[in-house]
């Protein structure tokens, strides 16, 4: 592996300053499960790796009971999210997604922020955060700015982050009552998979059981994680039952931009969207029913 100098600042400002001093040849590193592979393979050749591990605020997972807002530090590991009962009970879609990323060894080290910034089309972590209307807080030399997670991605391996910017945390607005959410990673195996396709669904129902809010988010369905807006719009205002979800699945499959790859064929990916939008939708409905 190429030699580099490892720096471990304790504040975001310090990290950005380090980066400024070494400009072109510095890279941030989170858990390292993606960055180390890239350096080993020679796809990334940094002279400096600036670790974000010692920046305490970035590892905080916190729900504000007064406002209902959830704040996930970018350096929170997948395992931390997986083990949190609060996440499991209140944000099942996050639990579904993070509990099956890579192996436990990777989840113990890999971070939610790293999963987003790596920006692969198959990033499991992005789907729930988009479905939950998550907002990414970015911190750069000129201060902070917010970007919705859904707008974070430009292309495979490319985000809106400017070179020195750091993804500090993701905030999730308070969840409305009568909300259910679920994610499934479809692959050939039960573990260690990159999804052939990833499907996340979130539904919020009104008191009269009509759909107040719908989120259908897809991974590997396009060059970047995407929302199936047509399908979402179709659901809103309707009384949700299985037939409606079948229809939504078809719409979502149609608006996806799936492609053939060595991992899977486009037609099958489309089918899986169709089937799993319904299945995840039904799971959401059951969750809402159970919580009444």
């Amino acid at each position, binding site marked *: 592996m190429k030699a580099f100098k490892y720096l471990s600042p304790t504040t975001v400002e310090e990290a950005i300053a380090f980066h400024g001093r070494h400009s072109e040849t510095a890279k941030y590193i989170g858990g390292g499960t993606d960055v180390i592979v890239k350096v080993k393979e020679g796809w990334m050749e940094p002279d400096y790796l600036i670790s974000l591990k010692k920046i305490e605020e970035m590892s905080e997972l916190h729900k504000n009971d007064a406002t209902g807002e959830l704040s996930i530090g970018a350096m929170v590991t997948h395992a931390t999210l997986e083990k949190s009962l609060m996440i499991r009970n209140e944000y099942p879609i996050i639990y579904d997604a993070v509990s099956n990323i890579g192996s436990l060894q990777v989840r113990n080290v890999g971070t939610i922020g790293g999963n987003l910034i790596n920006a692969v089309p198959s990033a499991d972590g992005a789907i729930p955060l988009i479905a939950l209307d998550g907002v990414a807080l970015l911190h750069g030399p000129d201060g902070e700015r917010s970007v919705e997670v859904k707008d974070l991605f430009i292309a495979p391996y490319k985000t809106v982050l400017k070179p020195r910017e750091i993804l500090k945390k993701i905030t999730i607005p308070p969840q409305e009552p009568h909300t259910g959410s679920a994610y499934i990673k*479809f692959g*050939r195996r*039960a573990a260690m998979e990159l999804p052939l396709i990833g499907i996340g669904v979130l539904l919020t129902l009104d008191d009269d059981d009509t759909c107040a809010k719908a989120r259908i988010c897809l991974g590997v369905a396009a060059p970047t994680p995407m929302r199936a807006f047509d399908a979402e719009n179709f659901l809103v205002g309707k009384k949700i039952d299985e037939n409606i979800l079948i229809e939504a699945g078809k719409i979502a499959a149609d608006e996806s931009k799936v492609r053939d790859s060595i991992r899977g064929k486009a037609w099958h990916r489309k089918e899986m969207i169709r089937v799993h939008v319904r299945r995840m939708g039904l799971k959401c409905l059951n969750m809402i029913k159970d919580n009444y």
Partner: protein
Amino acid sequence: MSKSNNELSSEFSVVGKRIPKLDAAQKAMGRAEYIQDIKLPGMLFGKILYSKYAHANIVKIDTSKAVAFPGVHAVLTGEDVPKKMKMGLIKDNPPIKKGKVCSFRDEVAAVAAISPEIAKKALGLIEIEYEELEGIFDPEKAMEKNSPLVHDHLKSNVLKMPWNIHYGDVEKAEKESAFVVEDRFTTTWVTHCCMGTSGAVALFDASENLTIYTNTQIPSLAHKDFLEALKAMGLENKRVRVIKPVIGGGFGSKLDTYAYEHIAILLAYKCHKPVKIVFDRVEEFKATSTRQPTVTYIKQGCDKNGKLTFRNMRMVLDNGGHTSWGATTPSVMLMPISSLYRVENVKYNAKCVYTNNTYSQAMRGYGNPQATFAIESSMDILAEKAGIDRIEFRRINKNRSGDETPQGLKITSCGLEECIDAVKEELKFDGKNEKGVGTGIASLIHVGGGARIYGSDGCGAILKMDDYGKVDIFTGGTDMGQGLDNITAQIVAEELGLLAEDINVVHSDTDICPWDVGAHASRSTFVAGNAALGAAKKVKKKIQDFASKLFDVPCEKIELKDKLVFVPEDKEKSMTIGKLLRKAHFRPGGTMLMAEHFYDPDNQNMGKELKGNMSMTYSFGAHGAKVKVDEETGKVEVLEYVAAHDVGRAINPLLLEGQVYGGVVMGLGYALTEEVTIKDGKIMNANFRDYKLFTAKDAVKIKAPVIETIDKDGPFGAKGIGEPGCVPTAPAIANAIYDAVGVRIKDLPITPEKVLAALKEKNG
């Protein structure tokens, strides 16, 4: 009825016992030394540069920058390889190519340097100009007249191999059949995925004798290959010593010698230093060989009572760019084709065809999984057409003890029917399954008593006893995790009245271990076991002879048990074996007890007619699967799996179950998830993320009933069982899927995509 595996072989003290693997504690502590762990003083590190193209002429190579790079000791190209240094079955493969490359895995240069990093950097400095040629990647297309030639000096891509047989009269039998079915099946590349990657360390002593540490399943044949390599290098009359470190998985991958071994030898010779080459995982995927992929056309028929009348099979094998043992897998495929179930009229033709893909090798089952996939899928199709229950159909045609098959295989012990019964008992097969759930069965025959594919199918053993009742046994056999160490120790201990822990099994060094043809063909328990047993019997005789004089009783009255040598009817006449050994040793004209035994089974080379009893005995088995198919996604879940085997005798049920479980899961990967994805000759998934081995989370419930038929020739009645676990797995699954949802998948692996596409076609 099968007994529980805990009740097997209770008449013995050591044989039949669940004795933990002898080297397990060492491995559990992280102390076992694999090739990765070997470090020698002054050692250099070698790296290999592979071709950039599947098919190309090498126009120019410039190594000057690499040679000049600090830390580099040597750079080799094809020009530096002696002309006669060639590898493989028909010696068509020099360790570094010159002039032309015919696959992406073709070696074009190699470097030795003071660190792996420097060697890798130096590879990047080698400049090669290629002239790309049109490649050919489909073996059936490669057979066509105008196809590009992989090897220019040959007139055709089709290899001259003898795989063409006809027993009985297939055409006549077909005409007389009541039911005939015909289908095409394909299997693709899969690979061994040994967790410990390949590697070797080569060094020469001051007299130019070679020592090579290498992961090999064939120490004696490797010894011969390396002697030939030295000869090609102009080093006549030198010695070669092959040392096997602890092997991190074999599965057939180490049945040939490879370029990295020859390159390590060349580099070590050039640098006068030890040179180590160890593959990284990507290299392991790209530069080791796969299981032989096949295209199979099968036609078989039966009469109105369900008796098989004929089996006619034709195969095309993708040979890749060079020829290793993959091209000989038809010799083993012949066995299930001619002899799985009773069938008198058999025709088989296989063509091995050069392409610009990777070349294949031996992999657990040696062709049998491919052939059995077609045969056992076709059996279900034929049973359905004939309107006969598929289990009954198999029973009608089952092999029986005493049969001689059209190929000339002599079936001695045969527990096939008991295996089928065991599967039926576990999985019911009563057709009462919920929607989307189905059961499937498939049987197997495999060599269980050696397999004569070489001038000798033998194995030697040397046994010596110390003064305290401990034994060192030097066996030609190879342990690569499968447990030959235990089998050897338990057999010897049983014979000599000792405990397994009293036996030290040495199997690692050709300087001290006798000859053996290799750890292949599930032959080690039978052949190496018989070699060890033969040596133990000789030593036992010596102990009895000595005790006979000591106790003044006839030899045959003396028994060995519980570390004692004694006369059962006279309690006074008893002594520890250790004491007897000392008495034999420390006296005027003393002696220490030793013996050697070379066992070469009385099996036959098939010869030109491709007929003959290739193995002393055959192992049988039946596998049953219960699956659930998700009809919306095509995903198959294995709910239950039963793998029943006729093993002759279970020498060690714990290790036997381990072989079966491991084989079955490897077979399930073959059936459902694994494939080396190759696009225009290039491997696209050279990593564990995209090459989909079963993970712990995918593991399924497996039952492994053991049928003991006590084979007359096996050591304590045992037959081989290393490979069968993965032989009929794919057809058992395919048959279960058909039973569940009515679609027949004929191409491995059976991915959700294929199942869903078939379901859509079926449902319109």
